[in-house]
């Protein structure tokens, strides 16, 4: 079931892959003030891997196990909740901070960005998980059993 490789597709992809990833980062940061945020950003980043999977098959997926991404995301998100408590606030309480970003410039940032980042990683995790476990794993195990 591995898709046949196409040079043109591969070359095209190299360019688009990073563009899409950048777009997802932009979506992520834009999210608080314009449409976007952790969910869409994660899904968009995930779809970048969809393209890679279509092109390169399993090799196109990150080596990192997707469930680890989820675990990390969960720790980040729940940790943010705990963090605000450790700092004397309520669970999941947010605070607005001023930060300087190289591209976007001066920005109001809420501490919930960390929370949102957790969401982002988890969403990426499930997309990659679907590709790997519903796509690659059955392929390879079928390859093992077929003569």
């Amino acid at each position, binding site marked *: 079931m591995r898709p046949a490789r196409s040079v043109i597709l591969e070359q095209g992809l190299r360019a688009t892959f990073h563009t899409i990833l950048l777009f997802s980062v932009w979506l992520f940061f834009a999210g608080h003030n314009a449409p976007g945020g952790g969910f869409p950003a994660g899904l968009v980043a995930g779809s970048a891997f969809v393209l890679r999977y279509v092109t390169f098959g399993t090799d196109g997926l990150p080596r990192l*196990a997707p*469930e*680890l991404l*989820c*675990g*990390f*995301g*969960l*720790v*980040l998100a*729940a*940790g943010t*909740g*705990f963090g605000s*408590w450790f700092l004397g*606030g*309520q*669970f*999941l*309480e*947010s605070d607005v901070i001023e930060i300087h970003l190289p591209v976007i410039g001066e920005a109001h940032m809420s501490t919930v960005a960390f929370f949102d980042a957790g969401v982002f990683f988890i969403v990426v995790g499930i997309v990659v998980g679907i590709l790997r476990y519903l796509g690659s794993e059955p392929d390879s195990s079928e390859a093992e059993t077929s003569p």
Partner: protein
Amino acid sequence: MKVFLFLPVVLPILAAGVSTASLGWVWLQRVIGLAVLTVSLVSALAILITVEADGPQSVQAGDWPAPFGITIVADLFAAIMLVVSVAMLLAVLVYAIGQKTDTTSRVFHPVYLLLAAGVSLAFLTGDLFNLFVSFEVMLIASYVLITLGGNREQVRSGMTYIVINLIASALFVTAIAFVYAATGTVNMADLVGKLDTIPGGLATALGLLLLVVFGIKAAIFPLFFWLPDSYPTAPSPITAVFAGLLTKVGVYAIIRSQTLLFPHDGPDPLLLAIAALTMLVGVLGAIAQNDIKRILSFHIVSQIGYMILGLAFFTIAGLAGAILYIVHHIIVKTSLFLVGGMVEETENTGALSRLGGLTRRAPLLAVLFLIPALSLAGVPPFSGFVAKLSIAQAGFAVDSYFVVGVSLLVGLLTLYSMTKIWNGAFWGTPPDDAPEKPAPTPALMAAATGAVVAMSLAVALFAGPLYDLTEQAARELADPGVYVGAVLR
């Protein structure tokens, strides 16, 4: 105090993240799981003590004022449920470690922790939509756990279970949409006042729709058919925790929503009918079965009827009885399934036709089974007796003679089918092909089961103070103002 309200929910989520990251190291997962659930139990106890002394406690997530943010709120009912549930989760985790269930699949521990988080959140949340989310957390964890072994039977029954619950979830979203459409809010305390502003029939319709939604999870008649088909195939500790807890979360939601949002003045004929049919059909189903876990699964249904019965009277005595019943039932049902699991572990089967003579082969098992079995049937001096007695008294007090009569009859039939297990599995001769000595039971499994059985004995022994507690909880439930006051301070 505020910390304690959050800990049973957020800590397991955080720990699940860590546990996920340590998929390769079972020992680390075990340590995390046990530690986190212990902390949860301690905080649950702290909540109970505080709530008992100072009345319902609430805290606003993110410090956003109610009804806009999500309120975490614990009244006595919620606190009692939380303590019992977390204690069961902890005991079953020990059992699962003893049985090595957690090595069947490496995702067991994180999923189990998230199940715990979902259950805790369901008890503590004061927000209808958040209740939906907590149900989903709990449910998807249960989907994964029920199909943990991935064998043919589990996949088949898991499919039934999942599809039914997805329908229930879709109905839940639908119900929330209707509620929001009519009232413009999803905070439960806020709903109390706003439901008064809409036409009575519409409010009743919303109440009934929610009753159906929660009734599917709680397995009441005629919505329970999925349960006996899906529970028995899961690994024993999983069935135990499902049997003890998950349906009771549904019952909790029914009691919470019916008392808070849709209170009645006297006995509700619809709920009385549902209770009677649930009890009766469940127990008749159990009598027709020949496998330990299937018999026990039908009994879950039957027992749910008693809890609904206590609610249906809409009196303080009835509610107190219902809560006492839930507490008793969670503990007893969990222990029965744990024993059922031990039988399967030692004898490799749960079919009554292939069992026999366990009183001699495994006397410890016999004791561990007999106590909760008699308790389930409501035989004194065990916990079930006190619970059933209080519900029967409450029923007679409001002249619901017929339904109470049914409940007593069901008690007899329960005894009948419990002794069917006893006659079949514990007495008689073992089948010819049974091994000389039964396989030894891992000590951890026996210890965990023993602890749960001991808890059920404690419920019986301290039934007096416990009843005082549930009565206090019932008083709070009977007066929605208490809850509303705690949330919308």
